[in-house]
């Protein structure tokens, strides 16, 4: 199946992606209701892979449910819980199920989540996972064996544009591009200048940039995320804005919407993380389309 997301990005359309967290459990009713609500509003929906190292239903399973619904998923796959055999095996499964968009991630460390005594795998890292995807696309597995059929993917990678030292992160981003990443979905952006610096630096790599925008629902949530979410740092002035607001959610929407407008010219699309308030996404992006 040809990725619509890939085609839209290739033709220069500004894309909107979002993410919905798969349920902890096998009942996907609520998950699907949320996803259906986003149909037509967004171009693709990321399904997270045991996000924050908390065990949930397999993202490949819910990605497949989305395909059935006519909603395009971005399958997030991490190296934390699978060795190279399981990664390739799941990727082939994805191709067979019509799940072509892949976000190849290292994965948050297991010590952040709800199964801290589990064995972290990290047999491959995100760069090597991207190489594995490219290898499968060449019709072979990592051991050099020929595959039945040739799977087609649209592979992307994560980026943290605000992380310092920037030069160090840039080395890895270059490797990700060399290994086959064709889009970057970034961590939540709070400083448009940092994104501009990032986009300028990665422009020679010929990788599409989808900038992350997060809906902060309260100052408490922002502080919690600063303590517990790797790679996410909400600046003090934004925490203060939320603190002083009489309606923090409305303020969060206003901040997200403001940032979306500010970063628009520095990217090829936006990735909206609405943190369970996906019904507010249309309001956040209303000036984008």
């Amino acid at each position, binding site marked *: 199946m040809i990725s619509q997301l890939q085609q839209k990005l290739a033709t220069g359309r500004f894309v909107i992606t979002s993410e919905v967290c798969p349920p902890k459990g096998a009942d996907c009713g609520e998950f699907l209701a949320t996803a259906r609500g986003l149909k037509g509003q967004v171009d693709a929906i990321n399904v997270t892979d045991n996000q924050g190292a908390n065990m949930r239903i397999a993202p490949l399973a819910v990605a497949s449910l989305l395909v059935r619904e006519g909603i395009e998923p971005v399958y997030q796959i991490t*190296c*934390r819980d699978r060795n*190279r055999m399981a990664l390739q095996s799941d990727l082939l499964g994805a191709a067979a199920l019509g799940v072509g968009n892949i976000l190849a*991630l*290292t*994965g*948050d*460390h297991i*010590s*952040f989540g709800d199964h801290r005594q589990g064995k*972290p795998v*990290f*047999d*491959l*890292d*995100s*760069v*090597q996972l991207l*190489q*594995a995807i490219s290898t499968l696309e060449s019709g072979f597995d*990592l051991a050099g064996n020929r595959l039945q059929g040739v799977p087609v993917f649209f592979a992307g990678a*994560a*980026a*943290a544009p*605000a*992380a*310092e*030292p920037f*030069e*160090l*992160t840039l*080395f*890895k981003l*270059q*490797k990700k591009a*060399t*290994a086959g990443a064709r889009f970057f979905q970034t*961590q939540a952006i709070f400083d448009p200048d940092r994104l501009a610096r990032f986009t300028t630096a990665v422009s020679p790599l010929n990788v599409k940039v989808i900038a992350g925008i997060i809906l902060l629902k309260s100052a408490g949530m922002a502080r919690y995320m600063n303590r517990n979410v*790797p*790679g996410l*740092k909400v600046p003090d002035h934004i925490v203060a804005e939320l603190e002083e607001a009489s309606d923090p959610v409305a303020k969060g929407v206003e901040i997200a919407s403001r940032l979306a407008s500010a970063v628009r010219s520095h990217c090829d699309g936006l990735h909206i993380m609405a943190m369970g308030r996906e019904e507010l996404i249309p309001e956040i992006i209303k000036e984008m389309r």
Partner: protein
Amino acid sequence: MIVSKQKPFADILASLDGHPRVFLVGCAKCATVCKSGGEEEVWQMQEALIAAGKEVTGSVVIDEACHMLRVGRDLRARKEMVEEADALLVLACGAGVQSIAASAGKPTIAGADTLFLGNIRRFGQFEQRCSLCGECILTETAGICPVTVCPKGLLNGPCGGMDEGRCETDPEAECVWHQIYQRLKEQQATENLGKIAPGKDFSRMLKPGKLKLDK
């Protein structure tokens, strides 16, 4: 050296339940340096066991407990004390416990947990720098091991959780890729960071490891 740490005394006592007479074994090498089973700790353990109502039939600090032939010889030299005991309590690493268990012919209690192959920072302070992976890449990484020092063992640079050079799992800890980056900068060799490291060959560390030197 192999860093080990004595188990809590209550756990040791629980393991010795039903064994009133105990023979104690320590190690003169690593367990002595990390104070889990040297002369001093063996003596303290003896005092604590007696206070807890156990009889200590004797003790030995072997040089070194992982040396299987030496363990057999040292235990034979204390045959009567060993025979008198119901169990042996070993204050050494897991390698030591096993060579003693193989020679003792009696229940053998592991009195320590074995932690890692450690460098000694200063007296009483140990750090894991090498994870015995069987395929050394230190030449490419400025002499700093990402396999060990990165909690994820990443070979191609920092993960998305690194910021301000800090590790996502411990804000007090410097990201190993930041350390490597700084050292390569000093050596004007940061181009090393641009080379993609292939997936590691984990067949080099399949268990159990064995090495037999050619004559």
